[in-house]
């Protein structure tokens, strides 16, 4: 679906990502993990075309991303950034309607509104369609942004820490929703800090440390040594009923 081929990136000469390669398969649900500042957000911005790699290439269905116009790309790929606060109020409906942007030249039409309302109903947001998003809870707001991403009819959705600020119930709700979407064939990539949440819902993992890719693959790449090495925290790993849990013990 989307492949990273030896990409590296620097902000003003400061190398932030070094030689990253990975294939994101169709319908996979990948967690990009790593300590603060390891380059997760940067990687997601690169994949979305907001940033351009310094070296290497990002291929979307074997087409170099640099060759795809951003508005055409937006019909295939949606991005849910981490910080989301509007200065001016906007309703849930208008926010989701904005997801139709890649398909419209000037203003949205009847079909865009119909599509929007079907997405709202699908995500159970129809009751709050005319509420100001700044007045929603974080959990509801995250759902609205996922709805906006879906309004783009994308094949790929990138999300930067979609579960930050959410309580236990809403964390699981959002992750279950993303898992459901990946099962329908949408490729999902998230940056996430909560290892256990990622282990429960994601199918692929990619670990970054100081801009280097230290591991990638499925559940079995997660080992005690790896986590202790990256996070400098002593952990215990428990495997129970096919699930893996990481319990932090103390800083190393």
């Amino acid at each position, binding site marked *: 679906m989307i492949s990273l081929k030896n990409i590296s990136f620097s902000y003003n000469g400061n190398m932030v990502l070094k030689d990253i390669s990975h294939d994101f398969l169709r319908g996979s649900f990948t967690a990009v993990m790593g300590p603060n500042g390891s380059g997760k957000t940067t990687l997601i911005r690169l994949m*979305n075309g907001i940033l351009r790699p310094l070296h290497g290439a990002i291929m979307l269905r074997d087409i170099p991303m640099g060759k795809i116009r951003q508005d055409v790309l937006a019909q295939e790929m949606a991005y849910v*950034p981490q910080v989301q606060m509007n200065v001016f109020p906007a309703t849930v409906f208008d926010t989701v309607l904005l997801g139709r942007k890649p398909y419209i030249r000037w203003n949205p039409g009847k079909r865009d509104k119909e599509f929007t309302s079907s997405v709202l109903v699908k995500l159970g947001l129809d009751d709050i369609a005319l509420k100001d998003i700044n007045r929603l809870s974080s959990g509801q707001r995250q759902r609205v942004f996922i709805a906006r991403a879906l309004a783009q009819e994308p094949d790929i959705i990138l999300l930067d820490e979609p579960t930050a600020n959410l309580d236990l119930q809403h964390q699981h709700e959002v992750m279950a929703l993303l898992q459901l979407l990946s099962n329908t064939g949408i490729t999902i990539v998230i940056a996430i800090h909560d290892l256990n949440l990622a282990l429960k819902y994601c199918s692929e993992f990619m670990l970054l440390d100081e801009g280097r890719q230290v591991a990638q693959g499925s559940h079995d790449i997660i080992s005690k040594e790896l986590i202790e090495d990256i996070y400098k925290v002593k952990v215990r790993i428990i495997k129970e009923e096919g699930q893996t849990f990481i319990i932090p013990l103390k800083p190393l």
Partner: protein
Amino acid sequence: MKERKVLDQYSQFTRRKNTFLVIFLVLIIIIAFVSMLLGPSNIGFKDMMNVFAGKGEGADTQILLRLRLPRILAAIMSGLALSVSGAVMQSILRNPLGSPFTLGISNAAAFGAAFAVIILGAGSMQSGGSDSVLINNPYLITLSAFIWSLVACFLILLVARMRGATPENMILTGIIASSLFMALTTGLQYVADDIELAAIVFWTFGDLSKGGWRELVIQAVILTPVLVYFFRNSWNYNALDSGDETAQSMGVNIYRLRMRGMVIASLATASVVSFYGIIAFVGLVVPHIVRRLIGSDERYLLPGAALTGAAFMLVCDILARTVISPLVLPVGILTSIVGAPLFIFLLVKGIGSSQWK
């Protein structure tokens, strides 16, 4: 079906906004007619209709078509130009304090006009009287006002590029630019003679009495494409309002949108300031009134600001002509006296947190 219900709710929601726009349009027409009938010489509704039908008395025709109508059109065009510019700047800078005046664009344009009058000799004074500034070359003055407002606008964009387009950076640069151009205008006053001095003072107090048909035509020629551009891009401004990264990921070229928007808003501002002088607070207060009434969806905000701005200016102009009649106050003083308390009121009520659910 649930989908239908949401759609119906939404179209009801947008219909209310459209109703608001229509009401304001009607309101403007009514206020404009009232304004036509107000003044020292008593002209009745019948007399006015006769003039419009082309069979009015000579004196009435003179007063209505040469004095009052141009003034009313000047109020409408200036009000809408400043308000739409303010609304667009607020979106571009993602800051509720954006407006041609707070960003120093108005002061820069006023300096440009004074610069054209004094250094380039584009205007002169007739002796005495309140109508004593004579514009010899309106094109040169507008051009100079525009160029200098662009200087202010690029200053802001430059800082935005270097230090990031945060609200603080923009507003601080605006305040600095504002005082810089005020100082430069004061500097010009030093080298000016009495007559030129009066001309400079003229541009620091917005006054609509200078609106002749020639100026109105120039203004209309400038503002028509400006409005078309802004209205067409309202969905892009909506994207911008939801965050730079979101807008970019939707394919909006945010740098180009910001750059063009600032330049075009500056042009619209210059078309007002260069002819009538600085008219403060309209561009700041009017968008907030509209945000409160119909929300911040740019598709409705921009036309709403245009209509409300025109109505606001018409009312301020009526007040300017009537409060100490027969003396006519500069309308710029009225917009500040009305606008400043109104803005503080809106501030106390909470900017951006619209009552509109």
